[in-house]
C-alpha cells in the first residue's frame, strides 16, 4: 500500500479577487521507505505540494492520502496531532529553537508534542544524536554550531519521534555543496536505518541526483502528467 497517494490534486490560492493555481491536478504515489525528491524551479509548486503532504495545507480539489488518511478531513487540531505522530520536518533554515540546547531541540517533539517519560526520552534523544553524529555537541546552543551541524540536529529532531515520513523543504539550500551532499547521505542512512520515507524538495540539479525517485514539477504540474497530456494531444 502506498504511503502517500494523490489523485487529481489541485491547490488554488486566492489573491484578492484572482484565483492563482499552484498545483494543477497531479497524480502520484510514494511507497514506504522511499527516498523521493520533488524538483523544479522556484514557483513550480514544490513547497505547496510538501505543505499539503505535511498536513499544513488542504487541497482545493482532489484527494491526498497520507498513511491512508485523507488529509482534507483533518481539522487544525487533528492535523497538528497527525503531524506530531507521523511526520517529521526538516526546514531550509534549520529552524532550531535558539533558547534550547542541541539535546533539548531534538527532545522537543517528545517533550512538548508526544510527552514521553523523561528517561525514555533521554535514551531516544541520545540515540538520535549518536545516529547523526552530534552526541558531542549536545549541550551547545544552535548559535554555537555550524550550518551543516544545525541541519543534522534538525534531521535528528525530525526522526526522534520515529515518524513514518520526513518532509524536507529545500534542506540543502543554505549549505555548501559538500555539506549538502553529506546531509543527503545522512538522510539516506537514516532511511536505511529507520525505514523512514524521506520526501524532499530541491531546485539544485547537483542535489536532485541523490534522490532515488524524482518527481519533476513545472508550473504546478508533474512532468509525467505533462508528457501524458502531450501524448494525448498527439
Amino acid at each position: 500500500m502506498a504511503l502517500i497517494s494523490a489523485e487529481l490534486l489541485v491547490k488554488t490560492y486566492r489573491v484578492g479577487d484572482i484565483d492563482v493555481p499552484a498545483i494543477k491536478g497531479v497524480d502520484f504515489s510514494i511507497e514506504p521507505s522511499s527516498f523521493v525528491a520533488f524538483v523544479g524551479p522556484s514557483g513550480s509548486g514544490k513547497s505547496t505540494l510538501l505543505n499539503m503532504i505535511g498536513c499544513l495545507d488542504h487541497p482545493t480539489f482532489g484527494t491526498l492520502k497520507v498513511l491512508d488518511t485523507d488529509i482534507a478531513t483533518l481539522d487544525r487540531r487533528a492535523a497538528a496531532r497527525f503531524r506530531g505522530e507521523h511526520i517529521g520536518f526538516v526546514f531550509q533554515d534549520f529552524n532550531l529553537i535558539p533558547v534550547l540546547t542541541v539535546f533539548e531541540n531534538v527532545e522537543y517533539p517528545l517533550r512538548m508534542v508526544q510527552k514521553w517519560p523523561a528517561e525514555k526520552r533521554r535514551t531516544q534523544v541520545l540515540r538520535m544524536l549518536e545516529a547523526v553524529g552530534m552526541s558531542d555537541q549536545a549541550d551547545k546552543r544552535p548559535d554555537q554550531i555550524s550550518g551543516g551541524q544545525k541541519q543534522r540536529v534538525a534531521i535528528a529532531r525530525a526522526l526522534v519521534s520515529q515518524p513514518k515520513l520526513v518532509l524536507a523543504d529545500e534542506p540543502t539550500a543554505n549549505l555548501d555543496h559538500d555539506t549538502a551532499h553529506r546531509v543527503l547521505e545522512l538522510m539516506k542512512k537514516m532511511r536505511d536505518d529507520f525505514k523512514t520515507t524521506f520526501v524532499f524538495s530541491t531546485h539544485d540539479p547537483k542535489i536532485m541526483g541523490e534522490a532515488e525517485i524524482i518527481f519533476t514539477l513545472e508550473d504546478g504540474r508533474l512532468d509525467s502528467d505533462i508528457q501524458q497530456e502531450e501524448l494525448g494531444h498527439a
Partner: protein
Amino acid sequence: MLDVLSIASRNLLRYRRRTLLTLLLIVIGMIAVLLFIAVAGSFKSMMVSQFTDSVLGHLQVHRKGYVASIDNLPLNLNMKPGMVAKVEEALKQNAAVETWSPRVKFGGMFSNFAETTSIRVNGIDSAREAATTPLLASRMIEGEQGALVGKGQIVIPVLLARGMKTKIGDTVVLVATNRDGSVNGKTFVVRGILEGISGPGGRDGYIHIDDARDLLRMQEAEVSEIAIRLKDFSRLGQVETQLKQVLGGLTNKEGKPVLDVHTWADLSPFSSLAKMIDLMTLFIKIVLVSIVLVSVMNVMIMAVFERIREIGTIAAIGTPPSRILSLFLAEGLMLGIVGTVAGTVLSLAAIFGINLWRPTFAFGQQQNLVMAPTIATGDVLTIAVLVVVVAIIASLQPAWKASRMDPISALRHV
C-alpha cells in the same frame, strides 16, 4: 506544566533587558500601590480612631429623628429609661460589643460671672465614657489625671477656656433650658481643659450625667445617645446590621421603629475624607492595573512578533495550539509572579523602613502623630493576585494570536 514554564523562562531571559524593564515597571507599580495603601491606610485608621476613640465611639444609638436635628440637641427626642434598658439588653447579648456609654447632651450657656457664651454639654458616666472613648482622657491638657469628671465638676474645651479666661479650679455656671421651657442654672468647678481634635470650633464640655439630669430637671433617667465600642472595629458593618435588626423590633404605637443605629461615619463629616482615601486607593490600583496590562501586553506582542517563524516551526512539528497558547501565557504568568514577589518584598521592606524611621505629622490640633504604616495580609494578597491575573490577561491576546497562527505563513515570515 514544568516543561512549559522552563521554556517560558528561557524565552524571557532571551531578551533580558526588555524583561527586566517590564519587571521594573511592575515592581515600581506594586511598591507605589502597597506603600500608598499602607501609609494612607494607617493615616485613615489613625484619623478614624481619633474620632471614634475621642468622641464618637464606633456606633451610636439614638431615638429616631434625633440625628436629623442633632444641631439643636433636642431634649424631646431623648430615650426613655425603658427604651435604654432594651438597648442595653441588646448590647449585652451582642458578643462583638466591648462596652457602651450613655450620654445626655444639651446646649446651654456657660458663664464665668463676667462673660457668657454657648456650650454643648455632654453628661457622661466617667468610667463608662473612658472605656468607650479611651483617647478622651489623653486630650485633657490641663487638670489632674484620674476620673474624667466627677459630680459638680466640668471639663471644658481649650478654646472656650482661653476665650473666657477660665482656669482649672474656677467656678462657672451652666444655664440650660429644660424640655418644659423653664431655665435652670447650676455651678460647676472647672476640673480639666480638653484639647480639640479638629481645630477651632470645638465647644464640647463634659459634666457628670447625674448633674446633667439634675440641671435639666429630668424626672427619669433619660439618655440622648448611647455610644458603643466594639471589640473588633473591622466588624463595624456586621454589628451595625445586627443591631439594626434587633433594635428595629422596638416600635411605637404606629408600628414604626423608634430607634436609629449610626456608625461613626454617619455622624462625622471626616468620613468623607476616609472615603476620599479609599477612592484614591482605588485610583492607584487602576493605575497599577494599567501599568501591568500595557507593559506585559507590549512585551508579549513583541515576543510573538519576533518569534513568528519559531511559532511556525513548533506548530509544524505538531505542537498543539493549546500548548503554544500555554507557552506564551506562561511567559506572562512568570512576569507577573516574579514582578509580584519582587514588588511585595521591596514594599514590605519599605514599610518596615518607615516604621523604623518613625516620621511624625500633624492632624488637626494633634501634633507629632507618628506615621506607622501597616498593611493587612489580605491587601498584599489582593494586589499580588491582581497583578498576576492582569499579567495573564495581558498575555492572552498575543498568546491566542500565536496559537492561531497559520504554520505556512509563519514559516514564510522574514
